[in-house]
């Protein structure tokens, strides 16, 4: 029987009621008294010196109350990078300043160089058109190899080779790996592109700045996945205002997928403008601005080599990648291609030699940062594609070659050659489950049936592993992180026994308000409806780092468990006093405290009331009240893993790929709400299939984003996708967090692109096209058809 309550139950989501009735409250739904509107002037060229900006005509337009340019911000701080990466030669990465508004130069299409504040949105928009800018156009650098080679054109004048860093992981492995590859009986080499994507959360970014001249308090309402991090960045680094004078509120947020982790210049602008005007200032992005300025994802150009024995035993992986960081460093953009990518390059496999080299390159394109999966999809795609290619070259079944190299359950904890220690897993178990749910045994019959219709059917299978529950502060500190990645929770039990849980996590679709309540209610044995989850407001919640990297339950949830443990311990002491027993004898079950071995007991509510009406209370031993805060810093990453299968049919006449079925067998450890976990995997798979077949942020040679709207950028739509088979019954609980959970938010986007591409290559190979060993994503009909022609 499925559970109907607490951990393990598919509790329906409480947040759905407001979303389904139109009563969600997203940033753009908020309006403040006396509000003005900001609209940005954005560069329509990729690279130019700003000779002059003439705002006089715009200033004279109706309703205009202020205009800002880069000149107004030249003395405030830049938006900082959150990770320091050192190059192989020991030099620190290059960190050019990322200003609030472009000053002196614009560096990508969409780079904002001015902002108009007006009484109405329409007036601001009209006035922006009247700003006259004189650009001295410069050649645009778009291609990474060209950027590295070109010393005359510089994205940042002070960086002669446009390189941010040249990173080796692990540098000490390099010689050994080179030698292993030189001496190996078989080496498979693959050149691939991990295509640049636009995150496209359905809610565009938006921010409202407020300033109270009477108190000096600022308030920022904004589309953020991590309000405290945004507060720290905007207050301490950019604006130089005291952290305690700024409240950041992230209300309902319509999806993030990474793109709303980061602090963006628009947030600083609306605050600065509010201070100057003494009035609220609101900005809402148009979709066009989302395309041009939200941090993009992926964009690697990679060469990977797999050295192995003739029997398929892996000897070494060597990877050389160029990673595009765009025109400026976004907050996590240096961590994504390095520590979220290079550390995963051993995959699920016992391979003794692994080396990764990543060159990060500045170009005249939008900044690139973590997007759902962040580095781990890039790692998984490279590994699982080159393994498939090797299996084909060696004539070994693709499942068999993976199985023979899997780290075995009795080998955990397992230390990889790239610096991680996997705590637990069972990769054969998820592979077994995958073959079962995808009916792999029936593939041949389905293929034959498709062939009778003239269609080429293929099956792609792969494994994945990711490092989630981001992150152990001591470890990431050694790796260059400039922040801690713990989290925090406060559990406030009210006098009447109901509970508010203040968490550092932020829910922008993940259903925390439901799942976290299940955890607390389950621990206390009280109804889920008695527990409310409060998130997204720095004036209410303790300092936590927010939601990304599949960390919410593993890290923030663990903080909630710790705080609830403290509540239980204190409540037992109160109950012991009231029941005249020793607190060691008090048991809490189903919301009732009882003295072990007796029928004496008290309900949860009676004990809570006593904490706030302490008439019969151990005041000499305990403070009144029942509220506890806990901080939790994980001991290690968590390691979700699994196996994915995709079946496709390719139309030989057109190259069109149809996804016939998609199956995912994941090991997420313990599960709090299976319904929500299914939904997370579905969403990730949808984005992964989008990357594999449809999506590409394509810049032309001039640095224009040619796929800059939903008319040109192919978002997955309902009729592009099938129903998915999803299973998470293989569970090896995480060994180091109290819930035994691993995180499920990114798996789908990590595991699915190689499954799709492997399936298409399989279809073409089976169709007799032995020359097609790889096609770069997205696998559009044109690309597939061209590959088929040879």
């Amino acid at each position, binding site marked *: 029987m499925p559970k109907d309550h607490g951990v393990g139950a598919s509790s329906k989501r409480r947040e759905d009621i407001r979303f*389904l*009735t139109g009563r969600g409250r997203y940033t753009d739904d908020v309006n403040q008294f006396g509000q003005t509107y900001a609209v940005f002037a954005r560069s329509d060229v990729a690279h130019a010196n700003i000779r002059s900006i003439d705002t006089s005509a715009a200033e004279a337009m109706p309703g205009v109350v202020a205009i800002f340019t880069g000149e107004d911000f030249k003395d405030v701080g830049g938006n900082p990078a959150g990770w320091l990466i050192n190059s192989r030669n020991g030099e620190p990465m290059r960190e050019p300043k990322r200003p609030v508004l472009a000053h002196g130069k614009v560096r990508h299409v969409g780079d904002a160089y001015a902002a108009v504040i007006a009484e109405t949105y329409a007036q601001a928009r009209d006035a922006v058109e009247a700003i006259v800018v004189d650009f001295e156009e410069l050649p645009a650098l778009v291609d990474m190899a060209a950027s590295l080679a070109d010393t005359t054109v510089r994205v940042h004048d002070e960086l002669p080779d446009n390189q941010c860093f040249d990173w080796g992981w692990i540098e000490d492995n390099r010689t050994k790996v080179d030698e292993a590859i030189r001496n190996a009986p078989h080496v498979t080499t693959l050149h691939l592109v991990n295509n640049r994507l636009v995150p*496209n959360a359905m809610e565009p970014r938006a921010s409202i700045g407020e300033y109270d001249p009477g108190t000096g308090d600022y308030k920022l309402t904004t589309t953020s996945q991590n309000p405290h991090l945004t507060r720290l960045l905007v207050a301490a680094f950019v604006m130089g205002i005291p952290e305690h004078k700024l409240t950041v509120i992230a209300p309902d947020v319509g999806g993030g997928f990474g793109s709303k982790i980061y602090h963006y210049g628009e947030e600083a602008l609306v605050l600065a403008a509010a201070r100057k005007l003494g009035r609220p200032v609101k900005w809402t992005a148009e979709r066009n601005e989302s395309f041009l300025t939200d941090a993009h994802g992926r964009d690697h150009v990679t060469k990977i080599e797999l050295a192995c024995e003739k029997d398929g035993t892996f000897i070494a992986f060597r990877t050389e990648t160029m990673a595009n960081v765009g025109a400026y460093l976004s907050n996590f953009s240096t961590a994504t291609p390095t520590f979220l990518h290079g550390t995963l390059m051993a995959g699920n496999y016992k391979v003794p030699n692994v080396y990764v080299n990543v060159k990060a390159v500045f170009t005249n394109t939008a900044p690139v940062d973590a997007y759902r999966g962040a580095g781990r999809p890039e790692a998984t795609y490279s590994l699982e594609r080159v393994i498939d290619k090797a299996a084909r070259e060696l004539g070994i079944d693709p499942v068999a070659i993976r199985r023979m190299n899997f780290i075995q359950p009795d080998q955990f904890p397992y230390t990889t050659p790239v610096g991680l220690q996997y705590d637990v897993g069972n990769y054969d178990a998820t592979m077994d489950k995958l073959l079962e749910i995808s009916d792999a045994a029936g593939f041949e019959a389905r293929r034959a049936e498709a062939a009778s219709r003239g269609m080429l059917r293929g099956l792609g299978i792969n494994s994945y592993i990711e490092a989630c529950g981001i992150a152990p502060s001591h470890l990431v500190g050694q790796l260059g992180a400039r922040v801690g990645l713990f989290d925090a929770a406060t559990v406030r039990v009210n006098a009447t026994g109901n509970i508010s849980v203040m968490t550092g996590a932020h829910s922008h679709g993940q259903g925390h308000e439901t799942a976290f309540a299940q955890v607390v209610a389950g621990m206390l044995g009280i109804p889920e409806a008695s527990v409310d989850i409060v998130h997204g407001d720095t004036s209410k919640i303790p300092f936590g780092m927010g939601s990304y990297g599949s960390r919410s339950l593993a890290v923030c949830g663990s903080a909630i468990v710790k705080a609830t443990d403290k509540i239980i311990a204190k409540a037992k002491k109160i109950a012991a006093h009231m029941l005249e027993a020793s607190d060691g004898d008090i048991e809490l079950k189903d919301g009732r405290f009882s003295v072990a071995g007796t029928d004496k007991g008290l309900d949860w509510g009676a004990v809570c009331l006593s904490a706030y009406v302490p008439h019969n209370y151990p005041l000499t031993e305990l403070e009144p009240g029942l509220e506890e805060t806990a901080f939790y810093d994980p001991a290690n990453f968590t390691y979700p893993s699994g196996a994915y299968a995709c079946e496709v049919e390719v139309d030989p006449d057109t190259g069109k790929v149809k996804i016939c079925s998609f199956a995912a067998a994941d090991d997420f450890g313990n599960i709090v709400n299976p319904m929500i976990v*299914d939904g997370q995997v579905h969403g990730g798979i949808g984005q992964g299939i989008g990357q594999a077949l449809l999506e590409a942020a394509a810049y032309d040679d001039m640095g224009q984003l040619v796929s800059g709207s939903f008319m040109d950028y192919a978002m997955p739509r309902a009729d592009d996708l099938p129903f998915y088979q999803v299973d998470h019954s293989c569970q090896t609980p995480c060994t180091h967090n109290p819930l035994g959970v691993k995180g499920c938010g990114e798996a789908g986007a990590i595991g699915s692109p190689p499954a799709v591409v492997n399936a298409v290559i399989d279809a073409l190979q089976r169709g007799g096209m032995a020359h097609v060993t790889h096609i770069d994503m997205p696998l559009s009909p044109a690309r597939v058809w061209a590959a088929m022609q040879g």
Partner: protein
Amino acid sequence: MTKVTMTVNGKTVSGEVEGRTLLVSFLRETLHLTGTHVGCDTSQCGACVVHVNGKAVKSCALFAQEAADADVRTIEGMANADGSLSVIQQAFQDHHGLQCGFCTPGMVMSTAALLAENPKPTETEVRHYLEGNLCRCTGYHNIVKAVLAASGQDMDQIAAE
């Protein structure tokens, strides 16, 4: 500025609009009905779908004045009279057909229009009809399930899980 009057969710409302004011802006900014969302600037995403005289319409693709005297229904008018969720809304909750909720009002409005035209659609028909509604969160799996369930069809027969 011109005065425009229409019926929204059964109530007669009016307000001053510019010629260029879109219906979605009138609903959101003048009437404070913020359940109708704006997800794009090219009439592609469907977050803004409302019903105008019974037909599903992208309210970002219509000027407010074009809806003068029309009968408009928005997500705020979709629940049952007693405030409980309608069959479609309930199906979305039961089948976890929403995550961040941003696309959801448009999805519900499109679903209502689909089921009015075609009370028992096939999976293919649902997917085809919802082509104009983008969702970035759900991979559509549970949305399609919810729509089929709202049409009274047996979900176990249709979707694998």
